[in-house]
């Protein structure tokens, strides 16, 4: 089976192994550990979201080659896998920044001025919501309530939480993101 990417020339698994040997081994080891049943699409389908979740954890996103490998190993079509990826907002097939900045837009954060923080971040980073900067450093996204409403407005950068954020704190938040 071919697909729309360059992986038809080189097998997707081979290409991934060449580019990202460690990550690819981690993914294949994970899939090896699944109780898949060859030819039982209904059963294997049950492991799809779990596999994609792990794959995104490993690779940071779900490039076509990863989709192809998952497709081959689980015996599901590429189109079905893409359908699932495009359905869940959590999954992305585009590389996202190393620092995932998510501004909470839940009710409490919103009334305390989260939108102004989003605007400030957009201006500073030059990207829209849901986009990654060209240098792949920052991703700007939005969240719906992280359960810290007393700290509103809240910004999360990867697993770090900033509370009572004001637009003039944005520079310091970005400065904290040192590679």
């Amino acid at each position, binding site marked *: 089976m*071919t697909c*729309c990417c360059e992986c038809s020339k080189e097998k997707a698994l081979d290409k991934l192994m060449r580019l990202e040997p460690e990550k690819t081994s981690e993914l294949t080891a994970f899939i090896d550990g699944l109780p898949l049943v060859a030819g039982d699409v209904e059963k294997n389908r049950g492991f799809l979201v779990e596999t994609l979740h792990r794959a995104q954890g490993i690779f940071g996103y779900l490039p076509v080659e990863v*989709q192809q490998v998952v497709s081959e190993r689980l015996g599901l079509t*590429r*189109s*079905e896998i*893409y*359908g699932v990826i495009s*359905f869940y907002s959590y999954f992305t097939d585009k590389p996202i920044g190393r620092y995932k900045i998510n501004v909470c837009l839940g009710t409490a954060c919103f009334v305390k001025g989260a939108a102004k923080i989003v605007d400030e971040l957009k201006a500073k980073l030059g990207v829209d919501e849901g986009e990654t900067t060209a240098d792949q450093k920052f991703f700007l996204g939005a969240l719906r309530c992280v359960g810290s409403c007393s700290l509103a407005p809240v910004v999360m950068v990867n697993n770090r939480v900033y509370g009572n954020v004001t637009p003039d704190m944005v520079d310091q938040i970005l400065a904290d993101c040192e590679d």
Partner: protein
Amino acid sequence: MINLKINNTPVSVPEGSTILEAAETLGLKIPTLCHIKWDCFNTEHRCGSCRVCVVEVTGRPNLAPSCCTPVAEGMDVHTNTSRAIRARRTMLELLLSNHPKDCLVCSKNQECELQRLASAFNIHHIKYEGAQSEFPVDENGAAIRRDMSKCIMCRRCETACNVVQTVGVLSGVNRGFNAVVAPENFAQLTDTACTFCGQCVQACPVGALTEIGYKDEVWEQLNNPKKTVIVQTAPAVRVAIGEEFGFQAGEISTGKLVAALRRIGFAKVFDTDWSADLTIMEESTELLERIKSGENLPLLTSCCPGWVNFLEHQFPDLLHMPSTAKSPQQMFGAIAKSYYAEKIGIDPSDLIVVSIMPCLAKKYEASRPEFANDGVRDVDYVLSTRELASMIKEAGIVFDRLPDEQYDNPLGESTGAAVIFGASGGVLEAALRTVAGWLEGDKDSPIDFVAVRGLEGIKEATVTIAGIELKAAVASGLGNVRKLLERIQRGETQYHAIEVMACPGGCINGGGQPYNHGNTAILEARKDAIYRADKGLPIRKSHLNPSIVKIYEEYLGKPNSEKAHKLLHTHYHAK
């Protein structure tokens, strides 16, 4: 059995039946849109997405979608309460609110199931205004046009592609208002494993999936004084085109088809049946050679371009198995642009070959680069049965009043063996007739191999010809083909020959045929007509076709000769 009441009438149906099925036994037709059922293939699509079939069930607070609600003992169903009818109308209005209103210029005009329902429900005004989903049109390639702004998310095409054909190209993508059916990564169909079989087009109730048309180009060529435009008609067209003009399904309109094509202005009206006979000569010779050597068995037929695509994409390890014989369409093109052009003394580039096909994959096949010489395609344009019907209407030709006319010669003479190419099993039966005739003599050798006929997905037969026990199989519908090929891969089968057709039931159910809207009685009728046409012909074996005998004497030499190989054979590529 489950006992229930529908509109106060008691009815008993088997457990697991739906309310819709129970209502059908009472002669009630609940309106449906996303639901489709292909009875003769035991396939049903009941995703319940459109909610047009809702009914009221006493004791249930919500209306129930009848297409996917199983019956229960003592159920009390009312199909036509004002609440149900109001809800259906609302569903339709909501669907229409996000659907282009360009029905007059839509290629599905008057064949659209949404349009029919809007008419039946007398909807003249859509009260919901708002955004409309818009997607770019994919009309890359030669066969299928996708205009997903018209998609109503019934997802019938997904069932056709993924369940029936197991091609697996289409899937629901995105969510909410942005949801649409698309290939992976929104690729164009030409960049996927699509076989262009067109079963998704047959399944689509609206104008989201249609064919890429070539009517305008053909009219243009017909009016170009420098060009000689000839036409070939596939076997399955003659038993279906009448439906477009109000004939009963299963009427054979060969004579009127020829007359209509002549009135449209084709210089010669020829028949793909002629080249089907030629195909049998080449394919049967190849089969006998493989049986004699015992090598590379089974021989798989190669007439069906949808199947060839499927093989190239999904079974690259079996590329050596199909016959190298080109399909009848391409054999016709190759002979027309060599033998025939020479015979009438014109340059092949001034000869335009048009095909009328029940098929959309044929459009793709004709565009394959190996079927052209110095940029001159062997077959220039492929029109579907539907497109030809539209041309006939456009030209003001009154089809039912046409006299029955005969094909032109030399590429128009054919046999019963050729016409049965149009139904699943026909190619194999035609080959068996010729193999039997060659080995046992034509006086006593059998003609009717009924075991390979019918609409079942996989058929098997063992026939003894001249002491050789020949094991053969027939598969139609790519899902069935996959099952059979996987058995071959596992080494579980010992067949000599297998006929393969991409569309369930063969070309009578092709993607370019008049829309059947899930009414498979139409397919039965077309199939029966194919075998009636066969019975009605004086010659029923390909090798006894006088024009075929003549072209080997005059031009090709013997079947599988060097010249025959150059013109009539091809090769396959992994994709």
